[in-house]
């Protein structure tokens, strides 16, 4: 989740109210943002991904103020008609079909404002724009460009301009392989023969979205009074939303917004559209879901504190809000304005029957039997190391590999449990013996008939490690366990590379092969640096309960 830094003094000045740090922390948390810390004048807040409109100081301040009762209700933004054009060529249809644009005038940019603009752009790119995959934003000083603007695609081999922060002109391909931003976002243009470009009426390239702007036209300075803003991507709705968030932030800085006419062939669209959206609110449903009994005027007031308008059963949703899909989203905002802390808890009296899973109960019983024998329960990971599961145990078995392991140490799902216990024993060489341990856990193997192609079984593994352990001791544990759960079993001689030849057996119960038991081979013990005898068994519990 993106984190933003806010200046406490600026925030409180806008609010026009004094709040202690504790009050501020409390209010920010109940507004529905994740407060991280307040350090001196700096407030660090995590913004949940559904509220990209709060990623700027302006956007956050807007939401905070109305939540605190200042400037409540739907905020109106005036959009002037500039009459300027953006012509979208049909060549972009296959590569980057949409853009939404606007002009902002009367900017009073300070150094701090410019930094803030860059920050907002970065935060939006990282979150709402999904690292520029969904949308990319470009801002250009008007003094450097000449309207109208053309949005078109050119063969990638024919593109050449001087990218931002570069000393010389580069071809598109050079940018993608050599320029920092080019390398970072090259994958977004992968497989395309033509790349999209914004070009002005003097045929000057403004940018190659979503990669990089031109150095000659792309830099906003303190002298800049007017800018052209575009947002390009694959979904006109997303592009418009992104533009709206940005534009309203500019407006909150005191600038004026001018619309542009976008020509998609013969079709003309005008952006930005900052008119509110109407959404029906069923008051009865809202009260039912919240367990409250709110009247219409109350709801109107509560919605106002979250920046909505309200008229005749309908909420007016501001154009910068992108998270309102359904009336439940309004209902949540009503609850936030009402205050989660004010919700009186009430446990409903509904009679339902508790029911513990039978197999879970069985596993618990098994664990208690083993604890009764003085064994220590351990708890090991399902993720394991392929080497540990195979080579280190002297066996070659199939393990299911992760496509993207975090570390090589844990790169597979375990196929059996004894290696997990060996790992535990290997990590406890300095501790007192005997070390008699057990674990009940899930193992994974391939099975084409299941939904995922993976079959999961619950297994019990027991290991006795100490100077006196031997086959008799481990068999006694197994035998006691089977007597306790009243299941008959048969033992047959077996071969298994992890165990000493002639001291390993296969166990059959309920007509199924359910376990191996034996003394671990010294060469295996050596692999784990264990210099104490180990006996062990691994029992498939999934086969034992009907």
């Amino acid at each position, binding site marked *: 989740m993106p984190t933003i830094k806010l200046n406490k003094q600026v925030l409180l000045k806008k609010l026009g109210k004094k709040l202690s740090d504790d009050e501020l922390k409390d209010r920010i*948390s109940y*507004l529905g943002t994740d407060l991280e810390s307040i350090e001196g004048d700096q407030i660090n807040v995590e913004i*949940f*991904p559904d509220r990209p409109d709060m990623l700027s100081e302006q956007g956050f301040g807007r939401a905070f103020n109305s939540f605190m009762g200042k400037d409540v209700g739907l905020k109106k933004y005036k959009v002037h008609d500039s009459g300027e054009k953006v012509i979208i060529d049909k060549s972009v249809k296959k590569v980057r079909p949409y853009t939404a644009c606007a002009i902002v005038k009367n900017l009073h940019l300070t150094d701090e404002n410019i930094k803030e603009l860059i920050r907002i752009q970065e935060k939006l790119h990282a979150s709402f724009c*999904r690292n520029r*995959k969904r949308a990319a934003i470009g801002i250009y000083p008007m003094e450097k460009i000449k309207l109208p603007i053309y949005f078109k695609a050119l063969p990638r081999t024919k593109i050449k301009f001087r990218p931002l922060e570069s000393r010389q002109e580069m071809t598109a391909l050079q940018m993608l392989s050599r320029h920092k931003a080019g390398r970072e976002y090259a994958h977004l243009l992968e497989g395309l023969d033509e790349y999209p470009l914004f070009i002005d009426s003097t045929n000057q390239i403004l940018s190659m979205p979503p990669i990089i702007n031109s150095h000659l036209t792309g830099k906003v300075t303190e002298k800049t009074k007017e800018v052209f803003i575009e947002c390009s991507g694959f*979904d006109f709705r997303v592009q418009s939303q992104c533009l709206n968030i940005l534009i309203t932030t500019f407006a909150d800085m005191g600038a004026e917004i001018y619309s542009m006419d976008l020509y998609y062939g013969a079709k003309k669209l005008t952006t930005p559209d900052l008119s509110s959206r109407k959404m029906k609110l069923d008051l009865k449903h809202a009260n*039912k*879901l*919240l*367990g409250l009994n709110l009247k219409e005027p109350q709801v109107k007031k509560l919605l106002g504190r979250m920046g909505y308008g309200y008229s005749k059963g309908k909420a007016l949703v501001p154009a910068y809000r992108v998270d309102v*899909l*359904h009336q*439940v*989203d309004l*209902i*949540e905002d009503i609850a936030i304005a009402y205050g*989660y802390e004010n919700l009186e*808890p*009430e*446990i*409903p009296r*509904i009679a*339902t*029957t*508790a*029911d*513990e*899973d039978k*197999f879970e109960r069985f596993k*618990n019983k098994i*664990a208690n039997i083993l*604890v009764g*024998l*003085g064994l*220590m*329960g*351990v*708890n*090991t990971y*399902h*993720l394991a190391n392929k080497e540990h599961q195979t080579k280190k145990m002297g066996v070659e078995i199939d393990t299911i590999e*992760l*496509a*993207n*392991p*975090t570390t090589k140490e*844990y790169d597979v*799902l375990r196929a059996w449990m004894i290696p997990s216990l060996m790992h*535990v024993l290997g*990590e406890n060489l300095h*501790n007192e013996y005997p*070390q*008699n*341990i057990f*674990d009940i856990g*899930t193992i994974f193997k391939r099975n084409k008939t299941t*939904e995922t*192609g*993976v079959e999961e079984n619950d297994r019990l593994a027991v290991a006795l490690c100490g100077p006196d352990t031997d086959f008799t001791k481990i068999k006694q544990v197994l035998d006691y366990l089977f007597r306790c759960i009243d299941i008959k079993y048969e033992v047959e001689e077996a071969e298994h590379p992890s165990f000493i030849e002639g001291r390993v057996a296969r166990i059959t119960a309920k007509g199924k092969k359910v376990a191996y038991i034996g003394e671990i081979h010294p060469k295996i013990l050596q692999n784990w640096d264990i210099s104490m005898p180990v006996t062990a068994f691994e029992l498939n519990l999934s086969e034992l309960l009907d």
Partner: protein
Amino acid sequence: MDIKRLTATLHQLERKTLPCLAKVNSLKELVKASGLKEVEVMRALQWLQNKKIIKLTSEKKEIIKLDENGKKYLKTGLPEKRFLQALKNTGLALEEIKKEGALENDELNVCIGILKSRAAITFKDKKVAITSQGKNLLKKKSLEEQLINKLVKETIAKSELKDEERFAYENLKKRKGLVKTTPRKEVTAELTELGKQVTKEAVKLKNAIDTLTPQMLKGGAWKKKQFRWYDVKINVPNISGGRRHLANEVTEHVKRIWLEMGFKEMKGTIVQTSFWNFDALFTAQDHPVRELQDTYYLKDPAKGKLPDKTFVNKVKRAHETGVKGSTGWQYKWDPRNAMLNVLRTHTTCLSAQAIHTLKKSDLPAKFFSVGRNFRNETLDWHHLFELTQVEGIVVDENANLRNLVAYLKEFFKKMGYLDVRIRPAYFPYTEPSCEVDVLHPVKKKWVELGGAGIFRPEMVVPLIGKDIPVLAWGLGLERSMMEYYKITDIRDIYKNDLKQLREIKSWIK
């Protein structure tokens, strides 16, 4: 102090030492009289002094010990003895004596000096002869020899030497490397007034029973005897027994809590298709949580199967255009993404599966599960790739947000947290959504323990065909464990250090 109690709780070593104190006082004598080892007597004396039964005084003494040559002569005999033995009746030249007696030059000179002063030899024609006095000396052990033999058996202080011994000691001391002295504290013990009373009382307890044996029980021998009292305050060595792993202890308690509240346990697999883990939970296919750096995917089998087409289409529609009253996410949903196998990132997929199996007649229904979930996290002191999640849902036409707050508060109350805070949050599949914080009892800071909310209609309608409120929560357990067991590094929970597991306290809430 109760004399009887004091006497009855005397340790075996104390009881053996105490009677001797009436007769002797020094450590050495006490060792002899009690038949105990010196360290045992020392321990007993220390304990007795602590109980004010005796008073210990210590005196610095010089202890006489055999030096190198002394030890050597113990085996070979003193040189003067060997000199006389070599002589026999006839006279011998000095060279011959030296050879016969295996004597060194300096030893030879010493021998001549000593033997001459004792009139044991005479010189005649450059030959040495033994006198009758010398023959007498040969027959018995000299004072020096006696002292040497005694020094081997006993520790003797210089101040304790008898006159003859002192004479012998002085003689030996003059010679090179025969004896040496080392300083030592000599302990003497004296009974106090209390001690005398205790001694008197102890006589009565002379035959008290130490360990009660089956023989005594069978023969009834215990009837005529008294039991020795034990010092019940004494520290005993640690033992440890079999027990569950701490995480299992917590899990069992958590299960108990939900069972008590009438919830039914859900189960499901760890490997899930993205369909169940994400799509059925109205998580858009471009949501960052589905990226490789957050979620574990399988190499092979990389893909699983989707459920029946009608159901899948309902989920697809919810994503693309929404359910009634919703706009949906408005993008093109791709079934291939939904087929990708993942390690479940939450147990909420089990809730989705449980809801999908419900019929109208099953309502209201309450489910819970406690299980592992997986996040592609680099291991460090507060990140782990496997975590335990408590999942719960309440499916009921009349369920509301206040009920959700109540369930969460009730659960955390049973987990020992009285200060619980529910604040707004965001999850793709719940609305309203909330985060649950508890107040850390020591740090007095809010600690986030999980998320909760009411499932969105876009999730519920495809699953069960109707917009029914479903209260839901997914809470992490590891932070509670860390707080309770005072573990600061989350990896230590699953480190399986046997010393830690043997010594750690139980989960009692």
